């Protein structure tokens, strides 16, 4: 975790009481909430429906004013306009203008951030690419499906390259590709040192991406802490190996009995996660060029989001300039192996972990036709890095986060 600098969010005794027309208290949506979110943290806000997650987020954003208690965002009040330049927000539903088309929408929000025209255009293109809606960008958002609109919602939340990203149920309404992609984006941004607050009902997602969570019930905090601490079952050890013969199993069982004086609790073959299976089917369909007016597989996260936090807009501008000039350079043809960069390295990592050479792959690497043909080696290595993480996550079954690399 990054050094404990000034918390990005700090609330003290936060309360929100909704009153009716006669000012009589009607709902106590948030009660005495003390949150502290530190730079670089991915923070999960959990709780059943109506437990005050969205209300908390709205107060952080200055959309609601607290009944009592204090909020500081980057050390300032949430109504401070300067603070908002550093925040990206994805609301729980799509609140976009139905009559604007996608790129106009992004352009509009870019203008509100006073981004220069060139950067607005550039980021709009890249973000549309990322969310896979470039081809549908000329249609009014009113025509979009729920998930398509949410993808635009995600894109607009990233247009200013925020330091602090607030996502209210980011995966709701998204297909598994989108959900996976959002998770990838969150992980990636988290690794880049951005701070993220997300609320979600999909616990598996939260588990996949969050460092720390807090669970609300009736507006009150019921549990809080590092997700690895909260979930770690210290009384069980799990070992994953390639298929073993009966013989080997017998020996392993005997070995454990001899050394630990205990029995193995269970032995089973792990299943591929449905998520991965689904992703593979869709990717096959895409490879077969089947027509759709929906979302296409998104591309990579735009470069401007990949700078570690603490960089100024100036740097981002420079990176964009760099990126665009780099794109035009003649490229050395890529090996087919490196075109599959996203999945291939998994084997190496796995080998490393298992200390073995000739490991069979856990699954067929699906074709990845989506990398831009003009990808430079540096891009590839970047992809590799992100791929590593997600593959490892898969391998670890998203269970034991204490082994999550470089966090």
């Amino acid at each position, binding site marked *: 975790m990054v050094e404990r600098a000034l918390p990005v969010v700090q609330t003290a005794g936060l309360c929100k009481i909704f009153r009716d027309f006669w000012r009589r208290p009607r709902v106590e949506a948030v009660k005495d909430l003390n949150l502290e979110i530190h730079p670089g943290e991915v923070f999960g806000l959990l709780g059943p429906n109506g437990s005050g997650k969205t209300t908390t987020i709205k107060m952080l*954003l200055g959309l*609601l004013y607290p009944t009592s208690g204090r909020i500081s965002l980057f050390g300032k009040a949430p109504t401070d306009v300067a603070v908002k330049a550093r925040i990206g*927000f994805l609301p729980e539903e799509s609140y976009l203008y139905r009559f604007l088309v996608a790129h*106009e929408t992004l352009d509009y929000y870019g*203008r*509100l*951030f006073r981004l220069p025209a060139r950067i607005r255009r550039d980021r709009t293109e890249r973000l549309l690419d990322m969310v896979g809606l470039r081809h549908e960008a000329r249609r009014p958002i009113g025509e979009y499906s729920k998930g398509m609109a949410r993808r635009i919602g995600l894109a607009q939340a990233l247009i200013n390259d925020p330091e602090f990203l607030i996502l209210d149920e980011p995966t709701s309404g998204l297909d598994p590709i989108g959900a996976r992609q959002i998770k990838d984006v969150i992980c990636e941004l988290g690794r880049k040192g951005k701070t993220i607050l997300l609320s979600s009902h999909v616990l598996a997602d939260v588990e996949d991406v969050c460092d720390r969570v807090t669970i609300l019930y009736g507006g009150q905090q019921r549990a809080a802490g590092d997700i690895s601490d909260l979930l770690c079952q210290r009384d069980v050890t799990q070992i994953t190996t390639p298929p073993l013969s009966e013989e080997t199993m017998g020996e392993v069982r005997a070995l454990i009995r001899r050394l630990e004086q205990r029995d193995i609790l269970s032995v089973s073959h792990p299943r591929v996660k449905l998520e991965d299976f689904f992703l593979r089917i869709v990717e096959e369909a895409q490879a077969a060029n089947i027509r759709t007016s929906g979302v296409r597989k998104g591309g990579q996260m735009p470069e401007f989001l990949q700078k570690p936090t603490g960089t100024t807009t100036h740097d981002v501008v420079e990176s964009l300039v760099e990126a665009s000039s780099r794109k035009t350079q003649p490229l050395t043809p890529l090996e087919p192996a490196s075109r599959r960069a996203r999945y291939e390295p998994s084997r190496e990592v796995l080998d490393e972990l298992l200390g073995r050479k000739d490991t069979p792959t856990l699954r067929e690497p699906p074709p990845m036709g989506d990398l831009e043909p003009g990808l430079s080696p540096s891009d590839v290595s970047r992809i590799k890095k992100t791929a590593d993480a997600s593959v490892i996550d898969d391998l670890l079954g998203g269970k034991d986060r204490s082994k999550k690399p470089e966090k």
Partner: protein
Amino acid sequence: MSRIWAVARQMIAEGIRMKIALVFLVLIGAVVLGLPLTVAGDSSLTGAVQSFMSYGLSATGFLLGLLTIFMSRSLSDELVHRQIFLVMTKPIPRWQYVVGKWLGITVLNAVFLSCAGLTIYGMVHYIKRTHPPIDDRYDEAELNNEVLVARHALPTKLPNFMQDAELEYDRNVEEGMYTDVPGFKPDAEKIRLAQKHESRWRVVGPRDRRIFEFENVLCDRAFKNTIQIRYKTEVSQYPPDEIFRALWRFGDPYKGTPVYDAPVRHVVGRFHTIRVPADAVAEDHTLLAHFYNQNPFQGERQFNNVMEFRASDGVEVLFIVGSFEGNLVRLLILMMCKLMFLAAVSVLMVTLFSFPVACLTAFTVYILAAVGSFLKDSLDFASNDYASMFSSVKEFLVQSIMHIYNLLQWIIPDFGRYDAVETFVNGRNVSLVWVLQATTEMVLVKSLIILGLAVLFFHRREVAEVSF
């Protein structure tokens, strides 16, 4: 500024996408283009053009007023449908958002108004070309000189009646006329005397004459230009043909101007305009006009009649100070000022109320502004009336309404004061001073105050509070 403009742009896009623009243009088209077809063709060219412009402009003003109130829907919708959540989490101060919405409405209005103005301008020329000529040869000249221009009007200089009254009063005192009048008030007597002198001056007996003097006739004194004298007389006895015959003489030979005689055969009780070459105006920009109450036409009968120039329809000299186009632009700016005020009002209402309520209140303000002076008069009347006749409760009610209304007048302008359509249609100059007054009062002061209030209310509002 760039953020304000971003909000305004977004709103303009909305106006276009939501077909508001289209509907308005169709309506304007129907009103402006359909009107000349329905207006009966009995009138002269001048009449046709005047009634077309008058209806067209009034209708445009009214429609745009309604549209302005309606366009505030954009802000209301954003609150209800929560697009505001995203906007307000971007680094835009709330005041810029409110001002941006206002600016959006204003820009749309400006575009609509310009379209309507251009259409009206085009139609005037179309009517001019296609109107069937009616016997009167002067028709087109009349139109060009009296309607499609910007003329400045100067009233005649009145003699100092009070001075005359003082003199007579002094004489009367010397003669001891007032010594035994009980409760005598010198001031009232002087006023009575002044009125007597004035009404004497206003009538011209048979074979008598009257001199009208004008000062500051700042026109181009070239012969080819014309100035116009506009007047109306009543007579003591209507002639059977309702026509009086008289002679006007313009120019001051003592100041070296040519002298022009204009024998007239005019209908009693109507306004008439006489065109005179502009060199009748002296070098010091004074103009002398003589009116002879005698028949200059040989062989035509004329009753001996007393002519009266009433104070309410005084004699005027008119001269051209600007073009029709310039006048149209100034008129449109005046109309624009009202719309800007209305836009501010409707934005304010939307920050306070749900859309239907906001519409109603904004519309009420519109009506109050439009009938302001009339309403004030009737309330004045009512308060006097009731005070004496009815119970104190009613008196109290009327009084409080009066007070509220007086308060509102601080903030709601009287649109009637800035209604320039009639002036414009009569070919009179919509003066720059007038335009500046309107801009100052309605835009710089009152719109700003209203917008300030809107910003204040919007600031205190929790945008995520449910609104319906």
